[in-house]
């Protein structure tokens, strides 16, 4: 059979090259995903009779979740977390840093980028312990700095702590993305705006933003999904105190391994997946409307 592909391998050999990757993706990605959807339809638990003989319960888990106040609470906290730390926080802080560093000296730019990037490349566990140390009630760095001894930040202000933490940790990505996005704005267009006396806000709105609209949407999509699925909050507060910082990934983990309700947790994972899907579709639609 003559080769029909551009590399000239022939279909058989081409398939042989692709097969190992497909098998691995199938085993580690597709199968678990389908499996968890299946489990979500059962009352499978970690221990007890239904761990041996799980029953199919259909959509009971879903309807149960929708009437579970703890699920509602988690959903709300997740939205708060995403909105505060990603959508508003990382986006605006990242853009502001990129915009301000544009005209800065080279060494200053490199220094700030390096520092911000450091927060991003450190492993989550390391960063989480650093922050536990910073926010500690007794001997925490923040209390020493603010002179507020005895304030248990993670207990008294768990969500605010998480949002600030994620802001600190994730801004690097937005900043780097926006730095390179701002390079596509022709300097002569910015100078034209300066010549006619446009203020900072109208320059951003009329000149900069239309050029980087695609970057803004892509960035927002990525950081929204990353933040919505982020498990690092567990390392800081484990969802507490009293579910006050229990975002959906943490809630799912607590349900699955804390309470052992694997079926219920899987059903909620499925709901989270749907939410992510909807967000992604909305962004893609907005992106396509461009031009």
């Amino acid at each position: 059979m003559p080769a029909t592909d551009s590399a000239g391998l022939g279909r058989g050999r081409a398939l042989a090259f692709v097969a190992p990757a497909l098998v691995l993706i199938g085993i580690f990605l597709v199968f678990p995903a389908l499996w968890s959807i299946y489990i979500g339809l059962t009352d499978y638990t970690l221990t007890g009779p239904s761990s041996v003989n799980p029953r199919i319960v259909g959509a009971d888990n879903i309807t149960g979740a929708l009437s579970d106040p703890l699920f509602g609470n988690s959903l709300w906290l997740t939205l708060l977390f995403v909105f505060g730390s990603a959508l508003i926080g990382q986006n605006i802080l990242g853009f502001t840093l990129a915009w301000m560093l544009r005209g800065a000296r080279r060494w200053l730019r490199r220094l700030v980028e390096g520092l911000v990037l450091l927060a991003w490349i450190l492993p989550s566990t390391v960063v989480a312990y650093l922050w536990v140390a910073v926010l500690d009630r007794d001997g925490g760095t923040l209390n020493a700095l603010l002179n507020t001894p005895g304030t248990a930040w993670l207990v008294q202000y768990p969500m605010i702590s998480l949002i600030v933490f994620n802001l600190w940790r994730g801004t690097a990505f937005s900043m780097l993305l926006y730095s390179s996005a701002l390079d596509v704005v022709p300097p002569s267009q910015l100078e034209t705006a300066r010549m006619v006396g446009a203020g900072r806000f109208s320059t951003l709105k009329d000149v900069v933003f239309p050029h980087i609209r695609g970057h803004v949407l892509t960035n927002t999509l990525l950081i929204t999904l990353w933040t919505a699925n982020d498990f690092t909050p567990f390392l800081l507060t484990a969802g507490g105190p009293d579910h006050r910082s229990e975002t959906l990934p943490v809630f799912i983990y607590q349900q699955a391994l804390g309470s052992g309700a694997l079926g219920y947790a899987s059903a909620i994972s499925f709901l989270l997946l749907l939410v992510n899907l909807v967000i992604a579709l909305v962004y893609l639609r907005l992106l396509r409307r461009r031009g």
Partner: protein
Amino acid sequence: MARIKIDQLSTVYPNGVRAVDSLDLEIADGEFFALLGPSGCGKTTLLRTIAGLEQASGGSVSIGDKDVTSFEPGRRNVAMVFQDYALFPHMTVSENIAYPLKVRRQPKTRQREVAERTAGSLSLGGLLERRPGQLSGGQQQRVALARAVAIDADVLLLDEPLSNLDARLRLEARTFLKRLQKDIGITTVFVTHDQAEALALADRIAVMEAGRIRQLGSPRDVFRRPSDTFVANFIGSTPMNLLDGTIENGSLSVAGATLPSPVDLPDDTKVTVGIRPEYLSLEPAGQGITGTVSTIENLGVSSLVTLECPDGSLLGLTVREQHEPAIGSTVTAVPEQGRLLLYGKEDGTVLR
């Protein structure tokens, strides 16, 4: 409308480069003024300093009666057209033209009205709803000009206004630009590295080198009487002949010929003799430089003939196409009365 007065102006970049070096210049109200020079001579920096996009390191810039040296660009009432036109790709032609009015918070109807009127006078009438990407280079340039003249600025600055157009369009745009400038009567400064463009457009030209003005004058002055060998080399589509000469017995000895000296100089003075190819003609008799025809280059209506003189120097002259001499023949090139220039050997400045 206003004059521009530049006083001891210097612009130094953070890396220490003096792009503009204690420069004095006065541009009259309504004048069409060219800053001409090779790349890196400081002409663009000077333009940007007038615009306020570069901070002056010393000296002052006044527009009208106001010293604007410390003014933000937006407060100088100066319009500028950039080399790449800097049109906003996401706005229509109409929105682009009206952008300065939008920034000044003029009502929408007034924006529209000004855009229509300006577009009409720059023959952009049917294109108001198009985007810049859908226009030709020449149309884009006219939109940029329309945006610049839509507000009644005191001064119009143009950075290399014709260099992004192809050769054919460039001539058309040149004529258009000159007519537009005369119609509006706005004080206009433009930067170019193309001497033909400067000669064709400007009322006056400043030839710049290394942040300073080497010669300031009308196109005619600059072409006929370059004040030094740098300007002589730079101006003219065929390069000026610059030959070594000596004064002997009150006459000029150059390329094996003896000519009357245009300037009284002591004997044995070494000079550089400058004569444009256009000011030399082939005569059967007369006091001229004799040489052998070595090459002939066709320039269309005329030809550039290169003579090899007895002392080895080369002399270019232009002749009408039908008067081409034969290659290898010996001919005499006679300079036109009063067109021979002498430059000092040391400093290269013209001797009077």
